[in-house]
């Protein structure tokens, strides 16, 4: 897929003014819910600090903790695999499915499998995969990627869900009643659950000390998906590790509150080894995470617990939509992770940000998101990935600001010239400021000129 620049994608999204506002309001509603519920915990800021410290500690000895997890999970009867790349991950999943001569897989929400593009890979190999998270199923039926990591179909209006279900499930044309549509989905998904031979899940937290892991859902679809089939495949990025069982509470308290404003996810399912007579396969995936871990500047981005709060609060994400980022993880955290993999392709993402800092303050694990976005800008300029015009204008501006006489002269000329120019020479297609905005009135004298005059008069 060709990747377009973020500003171009964003402009298309913004052009549909009603829809862009609807999207903004929907996500702001979630952010407000988060504020309300966070405010009920007097220890909120302490929890964030604690979570951040646990993650910092975890990353400082990630290799050891991963091996500890492998040992303990194996003891519990699980089989643990290591995948360096998405291709390795997908091959492992496929080989497990093929060993069981299975063709039907149900999958609960997993951004990692999205990141690895698992669905199209399995489909090419004759496997039917059904996403059982309602939002993710909707985008699967639409043949679109998720636009948000917690609410994959947040960009879809319920009228559109009605049309989609009418087409795929035969619901009444024009139906928009949520309980009616949800019931239709439930009925159809039930069939998929009952027919599935393999259940696939993501992982929210893997506990080194016990070898167990936790999957959080609101729909219970992960539980059902791995309770009916005998084989459970769990796919996780290596940063999902936490050291001890007692650390879990800190994260569970933060996750749902930050993500959706709920006190806790409806289901927090714990898995400790396979169920009797079943199999449990756990795949640990790197896909560039070790590189990020090796970078002092961006290491902290691996703290992320994928709550999506930075997206909900980001004024740019809310008004440009998740698809404008063209990455599996969009928004502020996605704009840090994507260039880590491919700085050239995603060079506009760190600039899709007004540096307002709201993401850093909302983040439950205290990732300094906006500072890291700024660091990425430096990295992009350093690697000469900035457009020529931007680089040139900044070099010239730097030269001007080094020379006081030049700065004051250019200022004086500009203030003199601008009001004299006919409007079309100022407001035209080359002036992005002026498309929707007037320039400020040009004063005759600058502050420094007036100040010098005042001082002269005083003395």
């Amino acid at each position: 897929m060709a990747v377009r620049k973020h500003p171009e994608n964003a402009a298309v999204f913004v052009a549909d003014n009603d829809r862009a506002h609807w999207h903004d309001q929907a996500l702001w509603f979630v952010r407000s819910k988060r504020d309300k519920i966070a405010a009920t915990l007097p220890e909120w800021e302490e929890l964030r600090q604690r979570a951040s410290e646990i993650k910092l500690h975890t990353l400082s000895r990630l290799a050891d903790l991963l091996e500890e997890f492998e040992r303990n999970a194996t003891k519990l009867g699980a089989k643990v695999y290591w995948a360096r790349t998405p291709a390795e991950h997908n091959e492992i999943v496929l080989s497990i499915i093929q060993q069981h001569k299975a063709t039907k897989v149900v999958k609960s929400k997993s951004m990692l499998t999205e990141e690895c593009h698992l669905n199209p890979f399995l489909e090419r190999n004759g496997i039917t995969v059904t996403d059982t998270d309602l939002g993710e199923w909707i985008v699967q039926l639409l043949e679109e990627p998720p636009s948000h990591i917690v609410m994959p179909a947040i960009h879809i209006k319920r009228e559109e869900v009605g049309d989609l279900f009418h087409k795929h499930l035969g619901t009444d044309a024009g139906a928009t009643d949520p309980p009616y549509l949800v019931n239709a989905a439930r009925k159809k998904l039930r069939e998929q659950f009952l027919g599935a031979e393999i259940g696939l899940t993501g992982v929210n937290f893997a506990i080194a000390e016990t070898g167990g892991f936790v999957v959080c859902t609101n729909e219970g679809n992960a539980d059902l998906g791995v309770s009916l089939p005998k084989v459970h495949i769990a796919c996780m990025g290596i940063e999902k590790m936490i050291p001890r069982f007692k650390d879990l509470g800190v994260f569970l308290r933060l996750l749902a509150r930050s993500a959706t404003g709920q006190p806790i996810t409806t289901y927090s399912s714990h898995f400790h080894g396979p169920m009797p007579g079943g199999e449990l396969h756990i795949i640990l995936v790197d896909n560039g995470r070790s590189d990020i871990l090796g970078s002092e500047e961006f290491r902290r981005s691996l703290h992320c617990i994928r709550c999506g709060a930075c997206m909900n609060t980001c004024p740019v994400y809310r008004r440009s939509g998740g698809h404008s980022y063209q990455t599996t993880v969009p928004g502020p955290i996605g704009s840090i992770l994507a260039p880590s993999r491919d700085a050239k392709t995603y060079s506009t993402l760190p600039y899709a940000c007004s540096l307002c800092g709201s993401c850093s303050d909302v983040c439950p694990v205290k990732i300094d998101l906006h500072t890291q976005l700024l660091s990425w800008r430096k990295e992009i300029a350093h690697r000469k990935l900035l457009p020529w015009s931007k680089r040139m204008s900044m070099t010239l501006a730097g030269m001007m600001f080094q020379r006081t006489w030049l700065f004051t002269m250019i200022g004086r000329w500009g203030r003199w010239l601008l009001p004299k120019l006919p409007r079309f020479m100022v407001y035209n297609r080359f002036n992005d400021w002026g498309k929707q905005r007037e320039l400020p009135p040009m004063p005759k004298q600058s502050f420094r000129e007036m100040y010098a005059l005042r001082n002269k008069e005083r003395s």
Partner: protein
Amino acid sequence: MPHVGLFIPCYIDQLYPDVGFATVELLEKHGCTVEFPPAQTCCGQPMANTGCTDAAIPVARKYLEIFSKYEYIVCPSGSCTAMIRQHYHDLVHDHPDFERVTTHTYELCEFLVDVLKIETITGSFPYRVGLHQSCHGLRELRLGSASELMQPRFSKAGQLLQGLDGIQLVELKRADECCGFGGTFAVSEEAVSCMMGLDRIHDHEQAGAEIVTAGDMSCLMHMYGLITRQKKPLKVMHVAEILAGRQPEK
């Protein structure tokens, strides 16, 4: 009597001279001697925020050298002050004046409240005012409580404005959402930037504001641009202008 070196950001110097004078008047009224070193230009933020470190370093160094002799440096912009205090480390941490100059640079309201210990400012401003919390002042300098953080609510600019006779600070639906200026973001992400600005303006309008004020003229320049193009009656004034006793133009 504190001796203050005045740092007037480049665009305020060239485009908003009265904001500079309001700052001088406020500081002098509260017992400071003020000096404007004329060699100053810019803090370097436009280059630094674009990632062009090499272009920003000499500008940052120039700032340190010009202001090294002052007891206090005061600037009527949270954003430029944040650049100096929070981001000069990445550019000029090895400069001998780095530590002293960066820790002695204050945003105007912060200086009035924290250093001069001013609780209220006398004056009158009988208008309904919307206080726009400029992001860098709010989240990098902590001039107020950010809505994301669960902590007691405060605002240094709000506290000073509150003391004026007749002023009515209106309550916004989104207390501290970004206006979308964001420096070069305003042009490189023009569509989102303008939508953010219009949404912010609308929030002030629905709250009944007659004047939008802020600690940063850059946010106000962006909002003024949109307000004027849309021919809305809303006016913008820098917080220094209101505190110095200016009244809105009729």
